């Protein structure tokens, strides 16, 4: 017989080591899947995880993809830590992109230094306002924020689709579903000539730093942590639950909005239908893999960005579909969640004697 019981305490070391275990198990299972589909497993893994980052261009691409993931996941960590399930970051990213892009088009003929900050601010506010919808509905009508934030993803994506096909489409664009290319003054500067890595990475790094301070050094961070551990305790301590719900959603939405505006003013340079390859959903994996810890999220965003990059490389060299990266993203989260079981529970072997419940 075996018996499962809750552990009294969990060691901090194991807490941060299980993500490594999850990544290892993902690689092993990935190799098995590649083998079953008729590829040489080690060669496939090499194309997936080593080839893409073996030159400077690849490393720059890795950071380009990790930047939005990191930003969104930082925001999500505020929500998840306090037990608020915002899973609509993809929608907040899109809406931030729409508002930021709208400002960029509005200031199309301006070339001042103020244009870019204005666009970025607009994007952050856009994402923030969009995230306030599920928060306010949750506070006043007791609606489920998971479902509302999820539904809004599709609403914002369809709105973007409408805008780039219709009123905002490039007048000289032969009816392609895209806006004009933004002016140079509306673009985030590229850091190195010939590479795509852009100044957006600094926005991400600053947000990591700020998140660390807020979460670990302020009263608000303490409130968030307590509410996540026990809502009853939080109420007993007299924390204002409603204000906090609104606040964490606003932080989370602003981060997603920043990621969206960072994409359109950075690598993309215009609005079109596909401004994000589901970064908003993938960032949920990043937040979990990083253990909702700002530093952890930085590492996690690099690892998950590699699955995007690896899928692109493998598509070229192995002719696998670009969606292959998602197999790895899904598996990482499966294994991570599964290994959490060992963190919080212990399995006791009791021999084969029948025992009393």
């Amino acid at each position: 017989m075996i018996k499962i019981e809750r552990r009294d305490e969990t060691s901090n070391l194991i807490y941060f080591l299980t993500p490594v275990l999850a990544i290892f198990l993902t690689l092993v299972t990935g190799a098995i899947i590649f083998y079953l589909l008729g590829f040489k497993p080690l060669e496939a893994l090499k194309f997936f995880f080593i080839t893409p980052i073996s030159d400077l261009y690849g490393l720059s691409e890795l950071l380009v993809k990790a930047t939005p993931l990191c930003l969104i996941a930082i925001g999500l960590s505020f929500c998840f830590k306090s037990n608020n399930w915002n899973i609509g970051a993809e929608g907040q990213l899109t809406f931030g992109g729409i508002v930021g892009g709208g400002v960029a088009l509005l200031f199309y003929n301006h070339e001042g230094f103020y244009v870019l900050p204005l666009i970025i601010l607009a994007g952050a506010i856009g994402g923030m306002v969009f995230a306030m919808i599920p928060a306010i509905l949750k506070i006043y009508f007791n609606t489920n924020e998971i479902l509302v934030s999820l539904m809004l993803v599709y609403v914002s994506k369809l709105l973007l689709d409408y805008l780039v096909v219709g009123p905002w489409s490039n007048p000289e664009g032969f009816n392609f579903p895209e806006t004009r290319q933004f002016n140079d003054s509306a673009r985030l500067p590229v850091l190195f000539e010939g590479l795509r890595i852009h100044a957006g990475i600094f926005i991400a790094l600053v947000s990591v730093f700020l998140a660390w301070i807020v979460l670990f050094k302020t009263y608000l961070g303490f409130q968030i942590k307590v509410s996540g551990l026990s809502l009853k305790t939080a109420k007993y301590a007299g924390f204002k639950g409603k204000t906090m719900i609104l606040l964490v959603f606003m932080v989370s939405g602003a981060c997603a909005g920043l990621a969206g505006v960072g994409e359109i003013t950075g690598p993309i340079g215009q609005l079109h239908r596909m401004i994000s390859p589901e970064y908003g959903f993938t960032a949920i994996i990043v937040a979990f893999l990083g253990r909702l810890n700002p530093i952890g999220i930085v590492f996690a965003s690099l690892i998950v960005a590699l699955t995007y990059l690896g899928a692109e490389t493998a598509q070229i060299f192995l002719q696998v579909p670009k969606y292959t990266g998602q197999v790895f993203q899904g598996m990482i989260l499966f294994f991570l969640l599964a290994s959490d079981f060992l963190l919080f529970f212990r399995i006791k072997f009791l021999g084969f004697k029948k025992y009393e419940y």
Partner: protein
Amino acid sequence: MNIDINFLGILIGAIMASSVPLILAASGELITERSGVLNLGVEGMMIIGAISGFALMVITDNLFLAIIGSMLSGLLLSLIFGFLTQSLLTNHVATGLALTIFGIGLSAMIGKDFVGIPGKEFPLLFVNLKEVIPLFGPIFFGHSIVFYFAFLLPFGTNYFLKKTKIGLIVRAVGDSPISAANQGINVLLVRYCCILYGGAMCGLGGAYLSLIYTPQWIENMTAGRGWIALALVVFATWSPLKVLVGAIIFGGITILQLHMQAMGIRIPVQFLSALPYIMTIVVLVIISRDSRKIKLNTPTSLGQIFYKEK
């Protein structure tokens, strides 16, 4: 006039056909949710059902095997979800999302050799009646067996939940797993069964797309229908018969878009597409602020991890 009536019949028939995958997936997910489990992996299980059904059809040339296989593959994928959330007590939301992401990726990998292969004609029933009876002919006849199954399913689900003992047990587990367990009900077993059933129905919904509705394999061909099915369960306030009504409304919106484009009506299609999602949010607000309404059918323990100290 005759032509108009026939056109109306064909239009309604098309709306009903487009709502079939939604009815199947939503009915399955409804049972899962009524047992207190929120599985956000609907889209992933549907797309895996779509590719497995199509691949089996190409390999075995047997449509019956293809249908069974699609249900089994949806079931297998939901088994991952069941094992993680029920046995390893993982978070329902995160696990379900991982399932969808994983399913979309895996289906594309499996399907890479099946892109561009033409599908097979699926046998349709009562084709001769379709031509004979005006209006009702094209609505009710000349459809596949899966179509008829889908439209009977909500009635069966309703009967199961309201009139049978097992249905009562499922509801009890969803509303209060702890009291159910104290009554001697094996909560884990019930939830596993509901999760697997939900997976099988999602798989079937996916197979309807790749075998019958648009008989071919296209990457990501479910195109968000899984998320609409999830919305539908909420929209229907967890009541099987309302799933039927909701699916026809949501399916109707899809078909209407196509016709409006053809007729040149100047309402942006995107606004119509967004309607199901906006309507779901409105319904959520209405049912959530009235605690009596939400108590009526909503499984109280939805999405909560159940763990019984032994």
